[in-house]
């Protein structure tokens, strides 16, 4: 992986008719990197991906790949691979012919073609399936065919749209390791789109969190997970308790509390449920919900700030609904946020 930018999006603005989907997006991707575009549906991540592939016209800005401006290059000349969320296989062709599709368009045939297709199918573990028809395959197998079909083209960048969302839990885990292996073996620069933070954290070298068509934060999985820049990112990666900092007060959705300790210089603070101690502390709340989660027990407290979620050891005695309890929101256990809202 080199540090020089391989793919750059410069002030990219994309629109469907009059409605702006992505605005002024700047992003650089290094060669060999595995990058995740993470965000809720409608945040512009898939639109961004389609524009890189040339399937979505660019309203303004530039896309530069390997030193070449490809903003106006048509989709069939970009040398970019895309595995669609629906896989988009050709049902009238066999597995072999699906994988051979792009190679045949390049004029390849005979033994050279067979060898490339066989290698591609072997990479995704489908060597014995080349004569099969597409409708005979399971969802996971179809996705592997789609992956092989893109890989054999040796694209400069391989993109995957929600690669794991259509698979069941067991297959998802399998495919995750598979994708990582394929990426490391081929060294291909890979971008994948997901709305699932677990997927992004597990797979990516770097994560781009998007919201309403703009980038909210870019960072390594550790940075995104531990140091979310904004309340949006914090909420997305499981910080369920978020408060705004005003002087020495914490402001929540329902009201505010005064903090006896000194608050750090931040727009807000965020705590994961396990960072909120129950049974001691300067604040009081009433238990409104209890749920058992194996090793731990989760409580929802009604507090002056609004609902607060905590998670404590399941071995501790259970508190009944309606009990009033002390709790703490220790500033040193919180992630400081630069931006709220």
């Amino acid at each position, binding site marked *: 992986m080199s540090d020089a930018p391989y793919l750059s999006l410069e002030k990219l603005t994309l629109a469907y008719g009059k409605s702006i989907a992505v605005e002024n997006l700047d992003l650089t991707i290094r060669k060999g990197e595995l990058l995740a575009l993470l965000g809720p549906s409608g945040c512009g991540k898939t639109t961004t991906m389609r524009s890189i592939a*040339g399937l979505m016209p660019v309203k303004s800005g530039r896309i530069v790949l390997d030193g070449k401006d490809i903003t106006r290059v048509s989709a*069939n000349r970009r040398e970019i691979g*895309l595995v*669609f969320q*629906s896989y*988009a296989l*050709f049902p009238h062709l066999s597995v072999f012919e699906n994988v051979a*599709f792009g190679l045949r368009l390049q004029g390849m045939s005979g033994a050279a073609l067979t060898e490339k297709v066989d290698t591609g199918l072997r990479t995704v573990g489908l060597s014995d399936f080349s004569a099969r028809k597409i409708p005979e395959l399971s969802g996971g197998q179809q996705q592997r065919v789609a992956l092989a079909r*893109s890989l054999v083209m040796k694209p400069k960048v391989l993109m995957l749209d929600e690669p794991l969302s259509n698979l069941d839990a067991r297959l998802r885990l399998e495919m995750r390791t598979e994708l990582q292996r394929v990426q490391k073996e081929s060294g291909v620069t890979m971008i994948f789109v997901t709305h699932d933070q677990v997927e992004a954290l597990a797979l990516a070298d770097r994560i781009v969190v998007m919201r309403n068509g703009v980038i909210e934060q870019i960072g390594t999985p550790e940075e995104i997970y531990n140091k979310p820049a904004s309340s949006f990112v914090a909420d997305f990666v499981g910080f369920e308790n978020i408060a705004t900092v005003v002087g020495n007060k914490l402001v929540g959705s329902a009201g505010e509390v005064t903090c006896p300790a000194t608050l750090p210089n931040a727009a807000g603070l965020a705590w994961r449920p396990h960072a909120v101690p129950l049974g001691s502390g300067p604040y009081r709340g009433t238990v409104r919900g209890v749920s058992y989660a194996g090793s731990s027990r989760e409580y929802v407290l009604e507090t002056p700030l609004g609902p607060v979620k905590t998670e404590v050891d399941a071995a501790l005695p259970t508190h009944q609904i309606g009990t009033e309890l002390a709790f703490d929101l220790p500033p040193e256990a919180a992630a400081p946020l630069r931006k709220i809202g």
Partner: protein
Amino acid sequence: MFQNRTEALALALPAALFAAIVFLVPVAILLSEGFRTADGWSIQAYIDFFSMPLNQKVFLRTLRLGLTVTFVAAIIGYAAAYAIVTLPPSSKGKMIGLVVLPLMISPVARTYAWIVILGRTGIVNQALMTVGLTDGPVRFLFTETAVFIGLLQLFLPLMIISLISALENLPRDAVPAARVLGANWFQVFWKVLLPLTREGLVIGGTLVFTGSLTAYITPAILGGSKVLMLETLLYQQVTVANNFVSASIIALILILMSFAANILLRRIASARNSK
């Protein structure tokens, strides 16, 4: 559901008898007319029929018009259907409504409208003369072109509707997938769209071709006796010439042409699909 086959057959008997008496028997009698001579059966009438230059001409014209109307309808119908399918849902519904609308108007009314448009003092001639492309009115009516236009207009909606439903059933993102894999638009059409919509093309093609062969009103009004087609010739043979032998022969030719078109198109479709 039934205790035995006899019960089921008994229920179907009235309908079967009715169809046999009012359809099959008359058709059999009519068709046998062409093979009957004073002293037995022979195909002499068919040889006589096809040795007449007028009949040859009418047969070839019918075949030619049927094929060209189907071919042109397929090309412009495909473009229209693709455009409509890519529209956003709200305008898509409106456009499909516009395509279907002519089917709700009587073919007689639609064909007479062409007289207003193509006649000596019709819109087309007036426009041509105003622009100065011609000095006098051009004759459109009672030409093969007029019949072609009339038939195309009449049957194009059937082709478009068949192709829309075929295109709607395309796998999502199949076209963008082909693009990203390096296909230009011609290759996208040839390698992805066409094979995946062949079924719709066969259905549309069969409807347009058999429709064009068997249409009576349009060739009668726009072609008249100058541009006879098999259907108008048949009518003429029965009502004017009282020649039931010729009528019988034409009827059989029309039936065979429809069957042949259907079988041929289905053969093409299944051959490509099983590849």
